[in-house]
């Protein structure tokens, strides 16, 4: 399987990096920028899994390691089963 997992800060959690990026964009003249939230993604390749197991498996990766549930949410996306 090929997948992409997005991990991003929960709403309400302070994101000083995103804030700095937003203000840098504004400084560059992109005055329309209101806010930026910075996150990350992981491109993951695995050996094949039983049919229908992909998404659940990816969510387990997130819960066990890729995301910290105290501050982050995640979204999993299977690109190639």
């Amino acid at each position, binding site marked *: 399987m090929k997948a992409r997992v997005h991990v991003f800060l929960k709403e309400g959690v*302070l994101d*000083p990096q995103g804030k*700095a990026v937003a203000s840098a964009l504004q400084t560059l003249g992109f005055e329309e920028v209101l806010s930026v939230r910075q996150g990350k993604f992981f491109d993951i390749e695995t050996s094949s899994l039983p049919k229908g197991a992909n998404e659940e498996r990816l969510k387990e990766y997130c819960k*066990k*390691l890729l995301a910290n549930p*105290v501050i982050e949410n995640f979204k999993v996306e299977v690109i190639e089963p």
Partner: protein
Amino acid sequence: MKISVIEFPGSNCDHDAYEWPLRMFGKAPERVWYADRDLKRADLVIIPGGFSYGDYLRCGAMAARSPVMEEVVAHAKRGGYVIGICNGFQILCESGLLPGALLKNRTLTFLCLEVVLRCETTNAPFTASLRKGDLLRMPIAHGDGNYYCDEKTLRGLLDEERVAFRYVSPEGRVADEWNFNGSMDAIAGILSENRRVLGMMPHPERASEALLGSTDGAAILRSAAKAIDKNGKVEQNG
């Protein structure tokens, strides 16, 4: 009392943590490598500062999932004592032994300076020899020390008096300009529910000798040693 210091790849305060009890009590602690599972009969485990695993993924995330941390969690559940300093605090939060998380400093810079802490509770082995309101000077050195938790968790910490230390002004007042990293409620250190696990961003082990500019950090280890001697040895696994 037996003390073990955990060493992860990327720890850089493990020697400071090792020297801390050695110089105070004249007895060397054990060193425990992260891939081992033997805590060497420790009553108190010190998780030192540094950049375990290069801070990859999130500060402390990888270390929290290493073999030795399973043993540290079991040790804590048996009533064992643990202090996590700086990266050690981040690891304790990532491992679930303490609630909340440490976010990037609000300054977006690495902060390396002396701070003043106020002791917020003496109901803990690490602070029992202090007085509530005591001010302690010691350094911070971190990029991600901005304590965060959700409101419900914060309320719990406050209700149970589990905030051990707050960042304050030299006069002992909580004020935004003295909360350098932007921590919620100026929190510098917190306790576990059973009060035997302490996580803190500032470095008491670097402030326990006159030569280092402050000896205020010594009180934390001395206090823990006294409490452990009084409460008896920690039950060991097997």
